Every structure is written in C-alpha cells, then in structure tokens.
C-alpha cells in the first residue's frame, strides 16, 4: 500500500511539473475540444483579392459535412488548409482529404495547397492566429512559424 502511495505521488508530481511548462495561449488551449473557427490569415501582400480568395476557400472547405472547423493560412507560395473531422467520420479521413484536394485543385488551379486533418497542424494554425493579434509579433516571425508548421506536416507523410 505504501508503495502505491509513493507511486501516485511521483506520477502527480511529474504531471504538475510538466504541465506548468507551456506557452500555449488562451484560444488555442481549448481548440482541441471546442470549435474555434479562426479567421483566415494572410502572410503575403495584403490585398482585396487575396482577402476574398482565402474567405472563399474557407467557405468551400467548410461546406463538407464531415468536418466542423477550418483554418486557412495563406503564405507566399502555398496555402495551408487545416480542418477537424467529426468523430464518427474519422474512419473516412483519407477519402475526405482526397475529395478536398480534388475540389481545391479544380476550383483554384493556380494555388498550391497543403491540406491536413491533423490536430497538431490545426492547433498550430490557431496558435499562429492568436499570436498575430500581438503587435510585437512581426510578419517575419509569422512566416517562420508557418514554415515550421509545414515542415511538421511533411515529417511523416
């Protein structure tokens, strides 16, 4: 019994020590559980056209019934589209990703898309959105962050 108490103590201590060590901010923290619906981000020259483009991409992707939260980030060369799939539809994730890819390529043949259903990518996109609200966070930093996200996505696919 004494051993069990020690064991629980160690586990709780480890959990406490590790969980305090985080830089996640308000919105992104909950985005795994709740719908966060982040605004599209543009890390390119800002123009009316671009604004329209990302909004319409977001709307088009959100039309899919199987998913419920879409984040779009427009970089200089590529557009990152991250989304969350409804729980019961997760078996069809590969199919859904294919359909989205096909739709996007057909509708926006000029753009270069990176599509991901990974929580982590979505989480990072929301986090980027949060950080952009901070005036100290420069455009350059944001671009670097996007590069990192894309790298993460390519790591194992």
């Amino acid at each position, binding site marked *: 019994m004494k*051993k*069990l108490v020690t*064991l629980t103590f160690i586990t709780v201590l480890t959990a406490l020590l*590790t*969980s305090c*060590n*985080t830089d*996640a901010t308000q919105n992104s923290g909950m985005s*795994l559980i709740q719908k966060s619906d982040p605004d599209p981000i543009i890390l390119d020259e800002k123009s009316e056209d671009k604004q329209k483009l990302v909004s319409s991409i977001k709307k088009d992707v959100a039309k899919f019934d199987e998913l419920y939260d879409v984040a779009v980030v427009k970089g200089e060369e590529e557009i990152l589209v991250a989304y969350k799939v409804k729980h019961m539809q997760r078996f069809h994730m590969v199919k859904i990703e294919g359909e989205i890819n096909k739709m996007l390529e057909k509708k926006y043949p000029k753009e270069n898309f990176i599509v991901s259903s*990974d*929580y*982590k*990518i979505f*989480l990072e996109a929301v986090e980027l959105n949060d950080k952009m609200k901070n005036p100290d966070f420069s455009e350059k930093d944001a671009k670097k962050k996007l590069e990192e996200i894309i790298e*993460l*996505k390519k*790591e*194992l*696919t």
Partner: protein
Amino acid sequence: MGNKKPESKEVEQYKQFEKNFETKRPVFKNCLKAFLVGGFICMIGQAITYFYIYFFSFTEQTAGNPTVATMVFISMLLTGFGVYDRLGQFAGAGSAVPVTGFGNAVISAAIEHRTEGFVLGVGGNLFKLAGSVVLFGVFSAFVVALIKTILIKLGAI
C-alpha cells in the same frame, strides 16, 4: 509431437466425468472486465497522445512512438511494484493485449531471472515470453508486405 493417439474409452469417460466438477471460466464476466480495463488503458494512452501533441511538437502521426514508450514505462513501474500481475488476474486479455502487456511480459522475465546474472539471466531470458511476439510480428508483416507487393506488380491494386 502432435500425433494424437486415439483415446481409450476409459480416458474418454473420465474426461466427461471430470468436466462435471470443473469450475467454468466466467466467460461473459471476463469479457466485460477485459473490455473495461482494456478500454481504460487505451484511454490513458489517448490522453498521453494529446499531451504530446499539445506540449511537444508531435503531430497525430508522430505522437504514437513516444506514447508507446511512455505506456511501456508505466507498465514497467507497475510490474516492478507488483501491481500489474494483480491487474492481469482481474482483467485478463484487457491488460495483456495493449502494449503494456508486452512491456509486462518483458520486464517480469527480466525481474525473474535477475538472480541468474545480467548476461545469461536477464539478457538470455528477457524475451522468453515476448520473443515469439516479436518474431511472428515481424514475420507476418513480411508476409503481408510480400503479398501486397505481388498484387501491385500484377496490377491488381
């Protein structure tokens, strides 16, 4: 080995007779317990996966490896403290099938044969139980890969 002789009448009769006195395994109850405990272990695994996605730069796909390592580490602690074998008696397949059961098989053998020394004792007996899992796991993966390759070459897929 395996060349079963036809059983004599006496043996047949006794087997029938003995069956009447044997306590049956409570199959339904065991299944339920295995389902609950196995599910609980998997839930802990899922929590650890999210932990790695949130606080470290792992995506859903790459978080699997550290999660497995953590689960095996936890099962190592539980085995060493003498908790896991009791859990096993209660849960049966529920604690044997998840990766923690594999960890338990390896570590219990290591503890058991520690008194015979590190090289011939621990080293020689570490995979006494888990060795066949590793062997047949690798072998069946090989067979499946072989079949898939042949089918692709034939143009079936």
